[in-house]
C-alpha cells in the first residue's frame, strides 16, 4: 500500500540550531509533497509545497528538499526559535491530501 511516514516522533534541539525533519514515502511516486505546521488544538497550516522536479524550495528560514531516488523529503528550519516548536506534517497528494504521522519539534532556549 502507499505510505507516507515521518520517522521521528519527536525532535528536541537548541535554539539557533538547524532542525531537520524527514518524510519518506513508499510504493508510489507523488508529483507533489506538502508540509504543514500544527499547533496543539489547532488545524494544520500550510507551509511549503515542492514538486517532484524541484530539488529544493525555500521560504524565509524554511527549506524543503525532494529526493525521488531516495523517496524522501527533508524539511529544514534554520536558526530555530522556541516559537518554531510545533508538530510538522508532511502530506502526499494523490486525489486527496494524506498526512504523515507528524514530527513534534521542541526548540529549547
Amino acid at each position: 500500500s502507499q505510505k507516507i511516514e515521518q520517522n521521528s516522533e519527536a525532535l528536541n534541539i537548541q535554539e539557533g540550531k538547524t532542525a531537520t525533519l524527514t518524510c519518506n514515502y513508499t510504493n508510489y511516486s507523488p508529483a507533489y509533497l506538502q508540509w504543514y505546521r500544527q499547533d496543539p488544538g489547532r488545524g494544520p497550516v500550510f507551509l511549503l509545497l515542492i514538486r517532484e522536479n524541484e530539488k529544493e524550495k525555500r521560504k524565509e528560514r524554511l527549506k524543503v528538499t525532494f529526493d525521488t531516488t531516495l523517496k524522501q523529503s527533508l524539511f529544514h528550519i534554520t536558526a530555530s526559535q522556541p516559537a518554531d516548536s510545533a508538530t510538522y506534517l508532511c502530506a502526499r497528494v494523490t486525489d486527496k491530501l494524506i498526512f504523515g504521522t507528524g514530527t513534534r519539534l521542541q526548540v529549547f532556549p
Partner: protein
Amino acid sequence: EPEVTQTPSHQVTQMGQEVILRCVPISNHLYFYWYRQILGQKVEFLVSFYNNEISEKSEIFDDQFSVERPDGSNFTLKIRSTKLEDSAMYFCASSEEGRDNEKLFFGSGTQLSVL
C-alpha cells in the same frame, strides 16, 4: 487572510445521539473536506466534496456519516448515532480548485467528546 470557521469548538454528546458539526469554508473555494484527528494520532482524511457531491471518502466514512452543503456558505458533517470511538478533533478544510498542487486551508476544529 481568509479563514475557515468551525462551530462549535467543543461538542459533548451521549453515545447514540446525532451530532452536526458546522463549517463555513472560504467564500470562493469550491472543494471542501473533513478530516479527523484522534488524540495523539495522525490527521485522517474522511471525505471530500465538490459540486454538491461526495468526490471521495475513506473507509472511516461509513453509513453513520453524511455531509451536506445546505446553503451557499455552510458545510456540515453529521454523525447519525455517535460511538465512543468517534471522539476526536474534526477539522474542516477547503481549497479553491482542488488541484494537486493547491494548499488546503483548515479550520480550528471541533473537539467532539462522546460519553
